């Protein structure tokens, strides 16, 4: 990664902005409102191919790969411009482009990288098989078993909360290969073909009616030993790469989207019919905007830490917890201000982000952020114990 040259970064911003004006269908939200699964997948594929062709899908990849080798400052500019243009989120390929690609780049053999990285650029869809029904916040207690039989692992168990698993070609799978030692020590990391015999995927219907997550049932699934990433029983370390692969860019984009979405909220509060146009809601809007500013400030501090190679546990936990809160406050205000209109069942805006204007759905979706990716409670434990130095609870097994 080369040091960012300010004029080059400005030039990139102009390029991305100009490209978005040409490449982005301004009516995409209308197209994705109440879209079928097939229409969603087709649109994601189309947007993915446009971004890959323009070189904007993979700025975080290593130099040498198409679109790769961008500095963090450049990655940030691309994310900011996507948020500013209100572009669709590339949800179907998120795990592929970040989790799978970056884990493969760090831990993959040459053969594994050659097999998968070009395929990801072509649109190979990946999902993550980490969480289990009894291993959520306490991920290391996972129990999906992999037993070695010659050149294959035979895998049995169940995974859950796997984003868009029902569309996936491959899975980043954490399995238990040893039960004798500490729970983190007996985990291995496999790359599993989702079309293998014994894999059953069942989408989970969420409170919004959408099916973004899935369950994966594994019944004597055979995964070649050559599809293991890293050494046997070293999977926990590999998984740390996966879990930290986003490097702040996602939260940057989301906080910028929240900033731009103030306009959608302000328009609601100043509705022509007078609805929501009262002083109390306007005062609440000001308070939410003050918190969005604080969020953007925190995210800027996180990015600066990452850029200088000194990312702290504190900042990442503060940002995760604070974003979840502000998003809840934002959608909660919109929901209350919209009144009975927001109670009418309305179609979802697929890949439309977290502030789509379907305020009841947006409010419900805000729980994804307070639960997934280390719940608010886990973030609070991290802050209390690792930042504030408060003692661990002696009764909790680690």
């Amino acid at each position, binding site marked *: 990664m080369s040091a960012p040259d300010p004029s080059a970064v400005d030039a990139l911003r102009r390029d991305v902005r100009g490209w978005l004006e040409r490449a982005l269908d301004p009516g995409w939200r209308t197209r994705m409102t109440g879209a079928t699964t097939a229409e969603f997948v087709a649109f994601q594929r189309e947007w993915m191919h446009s971004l890959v062709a323009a070189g904007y899908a993979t700025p975080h990849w290593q130099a040498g790969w198409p679109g790769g080798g961008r500095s963090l400052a450049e990655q940030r500019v691309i994310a900011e411009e996507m948020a500013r243009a209100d572009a669709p989120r590339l949800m179907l390929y998120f795990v592929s482009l970040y989790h799978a690609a970056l884990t493969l780049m760090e831990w993959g053999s040459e053969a594994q990288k050659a097999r998968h990285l070009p395929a990801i650029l072509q649109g190979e869809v990946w999902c993550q098989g980490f969480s289990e029904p009894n291993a959520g916040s306490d991920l290391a207690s996972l129990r999906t078993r992999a037993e070695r039989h010659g050149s294959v692992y035979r895998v049995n168990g169940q995974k859950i909360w796997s984003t868009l698993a029902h569309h996936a070609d491959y899975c980043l799978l954490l399995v238990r290969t040893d039960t004798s030692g500490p729970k983190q020590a007996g985990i291995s990391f496999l790359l599993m073909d989702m079309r293998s015999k014994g894999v059953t995927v069942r989408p989970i219907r969420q409170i919004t009616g959408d099916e973004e997550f899935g369950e994966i049932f594994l019944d004597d699934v055979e995964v070649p030993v050559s599809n293991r990433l890293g050494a046997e029983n070293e999977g926990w370390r590999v998984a740390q790469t996966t879990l930290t692969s986003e490097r702040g860019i996602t939260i940057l984009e989301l906080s910028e989207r929240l900033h731009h979405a103030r*306009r959608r909220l302000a328009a609601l509060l100043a509705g022509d019919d007078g609805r929501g146009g009262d002083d109390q809601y306007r005062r609440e809007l000001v308070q939410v905007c003050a918190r969005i500013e604080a969020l953007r400030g925190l995210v800027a501090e996180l990015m600066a830490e990452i850029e200088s190679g000194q990312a702290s546990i504190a900042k990442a936990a503060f940002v995760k917890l604070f974003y979840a809160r502000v998003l809840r406050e934002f959608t909660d205000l919109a929901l209350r201000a919209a009144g009975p209109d927001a109670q009418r069942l309305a179609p979802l805006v697929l890949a439309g982000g977290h502030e789509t204007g379907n305020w009841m759905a947006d409010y419900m979706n805000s729980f994804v952020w307070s639960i997934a990716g280390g719940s608010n409670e886990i973030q609070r434990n991290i802050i209390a114990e690792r930042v504030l130095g408060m003692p661990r609870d002696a009764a909790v097994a680690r």
Partner: protein
Amino acid sequence: MDEPSLLDPAELRDAARGLLAAAEAQELAPETLWNTMLEAGWLALGVSEDSGGLGQPMLTVAALLEEVGRRPCTQPLISATAAAAMLDLLSRQGSAQARELLDAALSGRARVVCGDLDPACAPLAGFVPSIVLGDVPHAAVATHLVFAAKCAQRGEVLLALAGEGGALQIEPQSGWDETRQYGRVVVNTASLDAATSLMAAAAGAGEAIRRGRAVLDLAIAGDSLGGAAAVLEATIVYMKQRVQFGRTIASFQALKHRCADLATEVAAARAALMRACAAMDADRPDAPLRAALARLAAGAAYCAVADEALQMHGGIGFTWEHACHRYLKRARSAETIGGSRAARLDAIAAELLGEIRGERILAT
């Protein structure tokens, strides 16, 4: 003129911490402490070099106020800093009167604090015999008051009045927060001498008032975050020592999570303050709005931390001897400076909605 050499905010904070600790140990009289602060350059810090100050950026000024805010401080540094910012601006625009008063303030010959900076509240017309500015922080120890008003002939005006006799009557008030030294201020408009008291009128006054309000917001935010951070740290130290049911109360998750939430609020509000100061230092037109938003975040964080700190200390926190109540009172009184929170929110809403409407339209 050359760019002033920049002080390191961290070094400044260390020095300030040392100075305040020494002052406390020596039990310095309030007047002596104020002079010590002036000698250390604390009021001159953000004043431009052209006007006889140290020309440091707002980021550095906020860092100092954060440090000072760690112990509820009886000195009028917040208010005097905002007043000095206005006089500095007017002095650079050529007002000899402003320069003279600023020199007096920096040298300690005068103690100049801010009155109301919301001119809508103080219509100044010939037929109104007097106006009540209400309880003004530090007016009881001020020699001069700088405040905004509106008058029929000149529109928005910025006035500076001496506290001794004349047009100004200041009656000291006791407040729950003993650090603010409130004075009830009455302006006798009949004896107001425009030649000596008028600092600026019309557009010039508007610009100075806007800057004064922004600096006041940032100064209060800095002080609030210093107070919030200090009382939260002290609370956690206490919780790590206090043993109940055979373990320190700091190990109870119900309390840990509350501390984590508070630490998050303080970190976020601090980030907002840093952004707002940077906007101010870059002279961005949206800086006053950013400052007002930063103050909202800091004020809410200070109130939340002070409230929870008292609760988590339990009975000891309810005693006069313990410092908890000083933070609680200061956090609450800070929220009322320059008008109620609701009034501030309404004022910000108009500006904010203007900014938001000016942005490009989102896809539908």
